């Protein structure tokens, strides 16, 4: 055998510490917060809720529509739908746009000033204007999510094309390839790692903006659940909403990671 697999085991302490750390965190959380209706030295339930209570509420909310008018899964579904539409639109428009901007100077010359004007505005700042334009329905939220997703898409695919190895381009030139041919068969494939970077960044942006959009203008969705919880003074609902948002974001992130690993298996990064 040419090589031997060496198993380097981490010290026991190092393997235990993460578990301990999380365990102590949750235990401290559980024991430092008073159960509903009890007031003693512990943190009152109006400020924080115990993890077990949040869990029970979460299971309960799977079927119960009170007090905010929809079950947890409906809220999550609505949020996912908005995020998905905005995200796909951002990809569908942003990626080709960025790629073309990277390669064709005419597209770059026309599109870049407008893009540079719009880019520094945080997507959240569009919310009031969007409410003017679209009201608080699906359209407005999709628009805000689209705005927040399209910026990383354009930038990454643009940089991806600009970073193409010039030797490859010159080689193609030497063999008489047309501009369009070079673009499609050299620049686009070599920008793929950057493009996939954009997929992840854009998704994270979309998900963050979605919560903000729903906090301000919505009647369903996880962000709305959080707002409702605050308005009703139900801290447990707020915590449940936050945990659901975090969990859904983490799940989507893992899925994108998997897809990326599959598609980019052959590319060294």
């Amino acid at each position: 055998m040419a090589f031997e697999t060496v198993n380097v085991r981490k010290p026991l302490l190092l393997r235990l510490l993460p578990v301990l750390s999380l365990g102590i965190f949750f235990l401290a959380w559980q024991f430092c917060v008073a159960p509903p209706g009890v007031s003693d030295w512990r943190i009152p339930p109006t400020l924080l809720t115990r993890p077990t209570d949040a869990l029970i509420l979460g299971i309960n909310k799977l079927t119960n529509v009170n007090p905010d008018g929809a079950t947890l899964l409906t809220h999550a579904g609505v949020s996912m739908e908005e995020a998905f539409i905005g995200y796909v639109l951002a990809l569908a428009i942003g990626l080709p746009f960025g790629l073309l901007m990277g390669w064709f100077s005419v597209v770059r010359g026309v599109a870049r000033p407008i893009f540079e004007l719009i880019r520094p505005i945080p997507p959240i700042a569009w919310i009031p204007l969007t409410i003017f334009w679209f009201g608080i329905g699906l359209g407005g939220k999709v628009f805000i999510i689209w705005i927040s997703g399209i910026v990383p898409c354009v930038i990454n695919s643009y940089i991806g094309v600009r970073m193409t190895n010039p030797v490859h381009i010159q080689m193609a030139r030497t063999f008489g390839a047309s501009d369009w041919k070079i673009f499609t068969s050299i620049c686009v494939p070599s920008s793929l790692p950057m493009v996939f970077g954009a997929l992840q960044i854009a998704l994270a942006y979309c998900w963050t903006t979605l919560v903000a959009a729903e906090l301000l203008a919505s009647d369903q969705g996880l962000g709305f659940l959080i707002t409702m919880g605050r308005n009703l003074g139900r801290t447990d609902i707020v915590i449940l909403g936050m945990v659901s948002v975090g969990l859904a974001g983490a799940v989507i992130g893992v899925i994108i990671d998997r897809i990326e690993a599959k598609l980019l298996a052959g590319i060294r990064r």
Partner: protein
Amino acid sequence: MSETVQSVANEVILSSGERRRITISAILHNEYFLNSVSLILFFGLWQWAATSMVFGHSSSLASPYQVLLRLQELFTTTLAGLSLWGHMWASLRRVIIGFTIAVAVGVPLGLIMALNPYVNAVVKPLVDLIKPMPPLAWISVAILWFGIQETPKIFIIIIGSIIPALLNAYNGVRLIEPEYYDVVRIMGGKPWDEIRLVCLPASLPAISAGLQIAMSSAWSGVIAAELVSSRSGLGYLIIQGMKVSDPAMVIGGMVIIAVIAWCMTQFMDWLDRKLCPWRRDIKGM
């Protein structure tokens, strides 16, 4: 004779000694010409959309000129007791306080996590727990905890900018080439020398990139927090404009927000060049 210099990264000619003949095609491909065409088109479209009321009624879009007038008015008159300068300072002050705290905690913690596996084993799971939660989801809890004064806004900014600051410092140290450490060891350096001569300088580009991300997330965090509940700041300005159906004020506020965001980016870029002048990234945009 023509002399040309080509950019290293791609096929762009940076400068050319040859005099170009002025033809229609050359003008059409000239960058400045294209830029001005696009800007004229943009503002023209905006003006047209505002005057012909594409979005239905008059209170949905203001023309560029109206926005300018409104901005001038905001600079001279007061809204909720503050002129526009006051609102700008209110937002900036929150960002500066929150960002400073986040960086002062996040960067050293990230460095220590990367250097010490035990600290890492304790802190990393907690960071991973908080990381996927969008900072804006904390707004409601922050208001419940800290009321509606300055504290919840600063809390949101800290939450939003501490994660990129921390993770970039952490990854910056972890991704250092091991050969650098070997060199220090071969030259007889002590562990402290490894930290001082290798870890800190080699992780600076990553830290600086983290600061840039942290800054932009702090800025959008403060706007979001002000949109939800506030009595001052640029976020308050635009939400107020929405409530009184004054699109010129909303767009004016967005313009100011964008200008400040742009200045911040420029400042962070400048800082980046000062901190790590050896870095040769391709900064496309």
